[in-house]
């Protein structure tokens, strides 16, 4: 059974994979039905019938990852890099029998490309599932503190 330490390690590991651009390993953390969601409204409930910045399944996440490496992906010449600074994840719900855990992690995210650097703050909420002894992401929800501000390109993952 997964314990608090394993969950915390998992969240840190996820951020590390993103910071080191190990995209395929990052995708492997997702459950086959997993989703990555960036809401556009305060305390948004519905990802589909309310506007979102992103609501993507594995197919779409794969497209993003593959695009990043594409020969004709001009918005990645030069490449973007990112940095996650995480507060300790907090377990907000836990059902060990069902293997379901929900966590919330406060973060500061930096994305840089060329001479530009942009910084974002928010909360990452993970719905995690234990599948055959491994932890998988069912839903990663990223709520920016200023979700409604007009950003420039955000090309990587928070």
């Amino acid at each position, binding site marked *: 059974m997964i314990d608090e330490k394993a969950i915390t390690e998992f969240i840190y590991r996820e951020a590390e994979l993103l910071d080191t651009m190990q995209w395929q390993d990052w995708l492997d953390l997702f459950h086959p039905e997993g989703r990555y969601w960036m809401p556009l409204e305060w305390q948004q409930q519905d990802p589909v019938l309310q*506007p979102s*910045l992103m609501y993507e399944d594995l197919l779409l996440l794969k*497209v993003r990852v*593959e695009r990043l490496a*594409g020969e004709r992906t001009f918005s990645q010449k030069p490449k973007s890099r990112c940095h996650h600074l995480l507060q300790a994840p907090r377990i907000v719900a836990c059902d060990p029998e069902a293997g379901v855990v929900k966590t919330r992690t406060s973060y500061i995210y930096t994305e840089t490309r060329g001479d530009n650097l942009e910084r974002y703050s928010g909360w990452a909420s993970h719905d995690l599932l234990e599948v055959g002894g491994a932890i998988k992401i069912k839903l990663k929800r990223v709520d920016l503190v200023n979700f409604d501000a007009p950003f*420039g*390109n955000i090309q990587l993952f928070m």
Partner: protein
Amino acid sequence: MNKYGGNAEAIAALVREAEVHRDVYVDPEVFELEMEHLFPNGWIYVGHASQLAKPGDFITATIGRQPVMASRHTDGSIHVFYNRCPHKGVKIASEPCGNTGKFFRCPYHAWSFKTDGSLLAIPLKKGYEGAGFGDTQANEGLSKVRNVVIYRDFIFARLSASGVSFEDYFGESLSTIDNMVDRSPEGKLAVMATPIRYMHTCNWKMLVENQTDTCHPMVAHESSAGTAVKVWKREQGDSTETPMAVQLYGPFMSPYEFYEQSGIRIWPNGHGHTGVANSIHSNYQDVPGYLDQMVAAYGEQRAHEILGEVRHNTVYFPNIMVKGAVQILRNFIPVAVDKTLVESWVYRLVAAPDKLYERALMYNRFINAPTSIVGHDDLEMYERAQEGLKSNGNQWVNLRRLYDGHEEQDVTAVINGTSERQMRNQFHAWAKFMTMDMDKRVEAAE
């Protein structure tokens, strides 16, 4: 620098028949003149009447860079005014939308105004007795934008006191808005969602031009749409149904021939649209029940007419684009010569199935968001152009594709869909609306 101010000839010389001078994109003075002349002379989108459902509801907007607001008055009428207190200039409304109750109240000195903008009360009014206040513009309350037209719930305003009438300005181009509204079985749209906002470090006209640029998708979007198609082919397995996401991305990769035959229609005053015969929106999967609703509402023939008109991008000069088939309006709001705020709105087709709204919202976040891969492709090109145009090696931008040497201006025509004629059409209108009051205004100042 005062190269262009009050110099209609110099402005007109920036636009040749099939080329434009780079100063239209990079020169701060030209940008200032656009704010002073072009935007006040045009009919500019302010908002949608569904955002003003109840008396006291208001929205804020900008025309060029000028803050304006629109409100629903107690008698149901809609009014547009400049968003500044007549006293010291403080903005009356600071939020994108809200409800003010029975009156607006300036937070600085508590001057208050009825929801039609007229002055309601000033504290300690006796201080103005014998002060000649009645003769000032302040006595009229919030300064009104007098030229306002609400067309099928779309609120447009023209700041200039004189100029081209709404009907003459838009003419037949309003057919795209008609088609979008008609796609609701009740003939009604509703704004239910906040817009997706996306900051662009480029001139606003680059975005407008790109709306009818059909020779870039298969090139610039190979990285996004092309990858989506590739990944889907690899991953689809024995799946028989194409996911909505792939239906939306896939057509971007259509070949030149597709865009050539789908056509472009131009209208006078800089308006025009891609996707005349068909468009990248033509082959989306049918949504169960929708056609039946439309047939019940409009009859068999009219329903098919409405749904058979699947235009791609309609540019309403100067700075909005409307997609009737997916119910999206993009507002390209100029901030500086090299900075543009893009707000992309989705309208819900009232009484239509949820699935259509879901698709419109999905399209909006796929294409128009700061997190959208198609958006990344485009913005990269605009930013590179904004930088590249600083080069003195060649000071002209080439718009000559399918130019035949003798184009009539301000006409309606349907042409090959890869033509750059709509861009030429826009720049002809640009020069016209920039200069139409230029000489006059200089004389008035003397």
